[in-house]
């Protein structure tokens, strides 16, 4: 994730009293990130493809239906507001617990 975008996302998350950043720039797999850092959700950059040309973030958390699997919520940053990002994080957290 570009540094500026990452800093911006972190500032938005930190502005919430009930959220904290427990790690960044994780190079391992998703399960390791969620378990070793005790994270509820991961925010990752979803690389644009020919099919999905716009830049996206994705909220990753354990799936509510299938423990051990992951729910992947892509969010287009072109139309994403800070409030919508926070809302998506809350929803992902709620769905995984």
């Amino acid at each position, binding site marked *: 994730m*570009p*540094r*500026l*975008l990452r*800093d*911006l*996302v972190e*500032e*938005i998350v930190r*502005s919430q009293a009930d959220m904290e950043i427990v790690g960044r720039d994780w190079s391992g797999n998703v399960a390791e990130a969620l378990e070793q850092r005790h994270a509820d959700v991961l925010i990752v950059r979803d690389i644009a493809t020919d099919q999905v040309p716009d*830049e996206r*973030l994705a909220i990753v958390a354990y799936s509510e239906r299938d423990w051990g699997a992951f729910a992947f919520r892509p969010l287009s*940053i*072109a*139309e*994403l*507001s*800070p409030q919508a*990002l926070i809302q998506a994080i809350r929803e992902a957290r709620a769905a995984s617990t």
Partner: protein
Amino acid sequence: MIRVFIVAGIRLYREGLADVLARGEGLFVVGAHAGGAGTLAHLAISRPDVALLDIATPESYAMAREVHQSNPEISVVALGIRASEPELLTCAEAGITGYLTEDASFDELISVIESAARGELICSPRLARELVRRLAALAAERPPDSPQARFTPRERQILGLLDQDLSNKEIAIHLGVEVATIKNHVHNLLEKLGVHRRREATLALTRARGAVASLPA
């Protein structure tokens, strides 16, 4: 307090930066716009010190140029450039006085905004050298700034006659005009040359001719 206006097509940048910058000390976000039609009008109304412009498309440079031309008092900071030398030169030509790559930190963003608001241009020595080279090339394309270019055709004519030591009366007869008219012209000439006597005027002209003649080809 630095007044900041954000122009970004990407909503997360636009609204996120507005939220986060507004929390910082010494910064006041006066507006944000997605770019395109209406941006300049919003800028004119908001009167920011700094316009933070996301350089996401080639049209963004045209926007920067328009902002610079219509509101030269606003410092334009470009966000998200790749910082190649040609791109930095394009930024300079568009009137952009500060820039940040995607890999810049949030602290760097604030630092660049503060520098831009102070009227500073932060650039590498390499870019500064390239800018000077461009400026020199542009200056070379322009004809030398002859002091005579400051005078009207009539004043140039009278200056030539002064150089021949003609009096006001002789010049008036030569040109077929009143002496009072010549007096006015001579007065204007002395003022433009910053001297008090007609002899000083012809000396100043001689010196200027010599300086122009000695310019390298």
